[in-house]
């Protein structure tokens, strides 16, 4: 009886673990899409409305929901405080404060680099920086979308198989 309960718990745990990884994979795609939306809004504000970074982040934050919206508004707030530090430093601190980002190491580096370049020189330069980051985001999201079905099946199946194997071994 206890063995059976244990086996059920192991299988449930394995399935839960699989679900967690699968959900995290989907969240990663969703987060990249939200970032893409943020960059789109920033592009509009900077290139067409000639807004300052503070206004651009504030307005983008108003239109975005969730963590990205809060992040965008927080960056605007920090710029507004005019503490005398470089924007790169504000960006670094604010990205570091984002907890449990569903991003790979490379994606996180790209996010940090994007902020370091922002605000520098003229509008043409801003356009290039925004377009470059948009392209990087699109490429990353496309690549993940392609792998999505396969990866989710793997994330769900592999822990379950491992759990089953463990149960069989114990029985």
């Amino acid at each position, binding site marked *: 009886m206890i063995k059976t309960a244990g086996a059920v718990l192991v299988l449930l745990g394995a399935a839960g673990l699989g679900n967690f990884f699968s959900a995290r994979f989907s969240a990663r795609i969703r987060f990249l899409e939200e970032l893409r939306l943020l960059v789109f809004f920033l592009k509009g504000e*900077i290139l067409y409305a*000639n*807004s*300052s*970074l*503070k*206004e651009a982040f504030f307005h983008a934050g108003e239109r975005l929901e969730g963590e990205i919206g809060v992040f965008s508004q927080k960056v605007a707030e920090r*710029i507004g405080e*005019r*503490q*005398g*530090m*470089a*924007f790169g430093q*504000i960006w670094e601190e604010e990205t570091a404060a984002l907890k449990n980002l569903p991003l790979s190491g490379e994606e996180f580096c790209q996010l940090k680099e994007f902020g370091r370049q*922002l*605000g*520098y*020189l*003229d*509008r043409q*330069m*801003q356009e290039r920086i925004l377009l470059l980051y948009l392209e990087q985001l699109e490429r990353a999201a496309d690549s993940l979308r392609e792998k999505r079905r396969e990866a989710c099946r793997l994330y769900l199946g592999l822990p379950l198989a491992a759990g089953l194997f463990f149960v069989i071994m114990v029985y």
Partner: protein
Amino acid sequence: MGEREEWIRIFGNGIREVLKGLSVEYEKLQEVRLRTGLPLFIRYENREYGVTAEGRLVQPGSGDSRRLRVVTGEELRDTVECASSYSLYAYEEEIRQGFITVRGGHRIGLAGKTVTDKGEVRTIRYISSVNVRFAHQVKGCGLPVLPFLMDGDRLCSTLIISPPGGGKTTLLRDLIRLLSWGAGDMPGRNVGVADERGEIGACYEGIPQNDLGPRADVLDGCPKALGLMMLIRTMTPQVVAADELGSEEDLNAAEYGANCGCSLLATAHGSSLDEIRKKAAFRRLETKGVFDRFVILKGSERAGQVKEIRDGEGRILKEWISG
């Protein structure tokens, strides 16, 4: 937030720390000059002072001047970044003219390596000199002048003349305020302000931060010539105002305004009426009788003080004795 905290926020951290220690009255502070690898200077009460690393003011040439605080390239870059709210690109048009105007209406002059394209300045890279000129609203400075600018109920079209730093914008701003609010028996009137450089209204997100009265409509950041035309066509002003007329387009727009029944209130660089007359475009306007009054200021050594007021034909209406 106090005025000190506000003006100090223009600067990056390194310079900010030094300026924080200074015992100066903000109202008397005129300029802060930063140059890469060179000492930090300020202009205070019409005198130039060096700033020591300990945050003390010293007269250049005195024994203490060897201890002057030297500005680093990084501090200068931080200041430019900070002053522009990390958005230098948003000031592209202004940078082409060599300055940016920041919150509060303070003008930051820039010098460095210019990038040109087909004979026109595209931007300034490697900024090596920064001159922060503080805009102070001196309420009431226009009161002694205003009666001489009136012809009954009508405001005479007026040109305020002074060299750079002579207080033209300060006087113009106060005249706008007085006209907009109304002074004494004079009722307030609608004033359209073409504020190309943002120095008159010091607008933040479109709202003037300086007191321009309840009847002032400000077109912020709009080229003067275009702004004057737009205001006349859309806002039905009784008075139109613009700072630093200079180009042919500006003067054409001014002439158009004066011919549309509006009174014109403007400023121009110069030290006397004769100097202004040497410029062909101004001479043309004078011949056509566009300006009925000329207010000539004493100059940068006595910022904001009026030397004389002349009528449209150059006759002195009022002269202030130097003292």
